[in-house]
């Protein structure tokens, strides 16, 4: 493939790709995300390919492995385009029937359809599944349309049009558009993206870096993984546009090594984009050059923190430093560096294509656009949920998530990862955006959402998260290292029946110190699980301490009785 030398050549290529495709030809798409692979989607994919040959259907149907569309609970997911027939919990044994019935005769295989739990009615089309119907899948939706290892698939759905458009704009115009959109960083802190780009653009120095943070480390969170696995080009396109706006010629994707499929797909995407001249020297003949390298993280949670991430990129120990000078001024190797999260980058092409004003119409006053959440825990519909900012927790948990399984009651939802907070039932009507979650004592974080039912002990949950953070604290600064150690001792004591009068007060004092005195955001936010459970579930702490009882029946106090 010769490199594309102009936006015109890109459009010509796109037309030739589309011309070769028959939109009416049935295409069986099989989710090949990590979740569905665990269900055996690779063998299902192979079975489809074998069976197509056996039934001699090659001329009638295509088979395609796609990225994760989100409804992980019902994997392996198979959707037959263009009619969007949605089959769920598909196993290898179902493959011959799908081919002979649906492709051969045009019949729907009823037993593989999804049943709407509230109405007990079988749903045929993907878009009608309640889980999807109530979402706004601007970003994650494309995962279901393309083979992530095919740049032609991405081009077929309009990929890299935003890049071609951006290269005709001035860097300032792009930054203005991003500022107008109101996009805030999806990694957790919610910093306005356009402002960050502007600071990095204006920072002194010729060498500037653009970095993608794909070091997703929150337990239960997998939206970034699914984006990199399912649509790596959208992240690349965002980064190239950002680099052009910032004036950077070198980029890094810092992705954790525990995401092998994400690493593989991103590597393929970079090679393909380079081969097409969409990445590398003189992109689309614009004179602008930009290269991207992948760096794999070793699995330290703290390396998601910007300064620790950059230290790790440099080959040093991944420990944070004080950020009195921002990384946008002095970051990687002391050069101005712009770090954004995977989802932030994936939003950029959308903003350039449809305009900042259009984007700013979605969401709330202070938080624009959509957000992808990883909905997990005691929830009927585990999966990835993309909704406009401002959607209430109740809509996410009950309308989209299908509520709590096994007839149990909702107790709390943990947002923002391990250093987020637990939100009780009384706040279920809270509109989810950056500011509202912070006000409720939690945070947006990167978008993990762990639902807990009434069989969950909140003190035990606080202990679990504190233990996680104690293990992931880098140990550089005293309050985080020693504070979390002591916090864990106290919580261990309370959950094992050794709780004393004054423990709650001591936890609160410790929390205040961690918030004020820790070196980085890991320590600053680490008390959130403890603080939010004390705030909303204080009675459970008191029952453990005073009555040596665990109201949820989780903690056992045998050790105390033996003594």
């Amino acid at each position, binding site marked *: 493939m010769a490199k594309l030398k102009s936006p015109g050549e890109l459009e010509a290529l796109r037309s030739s790709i589309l011309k070769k495709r028959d939109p009416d030809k049935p295409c069986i798409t099989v989710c090949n995300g990590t979740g569905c692979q665990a269900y055996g989607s690779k063998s299902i994919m192979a079975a489809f390919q074998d069976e197509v040959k056996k039934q001699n259907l090659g001329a009638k149907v295509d088979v395609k492995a796609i990225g994760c569309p989100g409804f992980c609970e019902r994997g392996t997911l198979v959707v037959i385009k263009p009619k969007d027939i949605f089959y769920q919990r598909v196993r290898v044994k179902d493959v011959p029937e799908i081919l002979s019935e649906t492709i051969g005769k045009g019949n729907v295989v009823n037993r593989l359809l999804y049943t709407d739990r509230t109405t007990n009615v079988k749903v045929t089309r993907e878009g009608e599944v309640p889980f999807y119907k109530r979402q706004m899948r601007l970003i994650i939706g494309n995962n279901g349309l393309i083979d992530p290892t095919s740049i032609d698939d991405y081009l077929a759905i309009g990929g890299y049009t935003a890049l071609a458009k951006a290269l005709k704009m001035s860097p300032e115009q792009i930054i203005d558009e991003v500022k107008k959109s109101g996009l805030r960083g999806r990694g957790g802190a919610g910093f306005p993206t356009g402002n960050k780009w502007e600071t990095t653009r204006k920072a002194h120095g010729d060498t500037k870096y653009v970095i993608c943070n794909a070091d997703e480390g929150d337990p239960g969170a997998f939206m970034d993984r699914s984006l990199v696995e399912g649509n790596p080009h959208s992240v690349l396109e965002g980064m190239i546009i950002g680099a052009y706006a910032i004036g950077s010629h070198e980029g890094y994707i810092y992705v954790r090594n525990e995401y092998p499929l994400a690493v593989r797909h991103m590597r393929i995407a970079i090679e393909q984009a380079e081969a097409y001249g969409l990445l590398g020297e003189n992109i689309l003949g614009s004179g602008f050059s930009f290269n991207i390298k992948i760096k794999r993280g070793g699995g330290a949670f703290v390396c998601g923190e910007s300064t620790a991430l950059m230290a790790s990129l440099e080959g040093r120990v991944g420990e944070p430093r*004080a950020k009195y000078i921002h990384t946008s001024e002095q970051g990687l190797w002391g050069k101005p560096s712009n770090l954004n999260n995977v989802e932030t980058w994936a939003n950029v092409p959308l903003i350039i294509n449809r305009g900042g004003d259009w984007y700013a119409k979605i969401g709330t006053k202070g938080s624009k656009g959509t957000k992808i959440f990883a909905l997990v825990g005691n929830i009927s519909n585990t999966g990835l949920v993309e909704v406009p900012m401002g959607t209430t927790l109740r809509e996410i948990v009950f309308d989209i998530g299908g509520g709590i399984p096994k007839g149990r009651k909702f107790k709390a939802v943990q947002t923002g990862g391990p250093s987020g907070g637990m939100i009780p039932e009384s706040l279920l009507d809270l509109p989810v955006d950056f500011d509202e979650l912070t006000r409720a004592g939690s945070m947006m974080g990167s978008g993990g959402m762990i639902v807990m039912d009434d069989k969950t002990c909140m003190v035990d949950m606080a202990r679990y998260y504190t233990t996680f953070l104690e293990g*992931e*604290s880098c*140990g550089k600064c*005293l309050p985080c290292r*020693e504070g979390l150690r*002591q916090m864990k001792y106290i919580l261990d004591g309370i959950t094992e029946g050794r709780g004393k009068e004054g423990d709650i007060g001591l936890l609160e*004092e410790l929390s205040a110190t961690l918030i*004020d005195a820790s*070196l980085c955001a890991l320590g600053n936010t680490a008390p959130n699980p403890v603080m939010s459970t004390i705030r909303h579930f204080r009675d459970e702490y008191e029952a453990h301490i005073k009555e040596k009882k665990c109201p949820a029946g989780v903690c056992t106090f045998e050790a105390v009785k033996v003594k």
Partner: protein
Amino acid sequence: MVKLTINGRDIKAAEGTTILYAARENNIYIPTLCSNEAVAPYGACRLCLVEIKTARGRERLVTSCIYLVEEGLNVQTDTEKIRKIRRMLLELLLARCPDSEVVQDLAKKAGLDKTRFVEQTGNNKCILCANCARTCEEVVGVAAISLAKRGVEREMTTPFSEDFSEACIGCGSCSYSCPTGAISMEDKNSTRVIKWPHNTMEFKLKKCSVCGQYWAPEKQIEYIAKISGTPISDYDKCPDCRE
């Protein structure tokens, strides 16, 4: 020169000075354990936290060992909030190093005589400030010891936690830079003994060809000869006996 106020006092300090050193030059006390002029600021012990208000009116807590003086900065080193944080930090330190006299003294100064937290055992005086490892790397240039592992498992150790660090030249800079006396050094006749929290190493000392005194570890002399490009024979005599 930059003009700022610390605890209401007008102060002038050279640009690029940290708040901590500006305060010290003016005899204003800010407690600290991990700060050492010989090495780059690190900000681990957090004892030197101060409250600042910038000329633009932004108020926040910063580590004075890292934050540089700026025009119109208003610094408070001893507010109720700061005292509360320091007391809690010292309480945590007392639990970590119950046997450290330095920590006990600082705690006493802050009005604390005991900790409410679970005390660590094993007579470990190391507060993990990394002064030793940072001095070894940044000043000596050998990086014979470093911090390993993370979080509560973090420890100061030799490469691969072996008993013997091959890179160590026995200079003892780690011991000099340790704020809590967790690393000790003693010269006994022809042998230098350095004791770290996790192990002990011995070094052969070189004898002066004139006075017969043992004056420096042989490995250190070899290292100095190597980095300075001078012949090893230059070091036969101790500094006192050289002409």
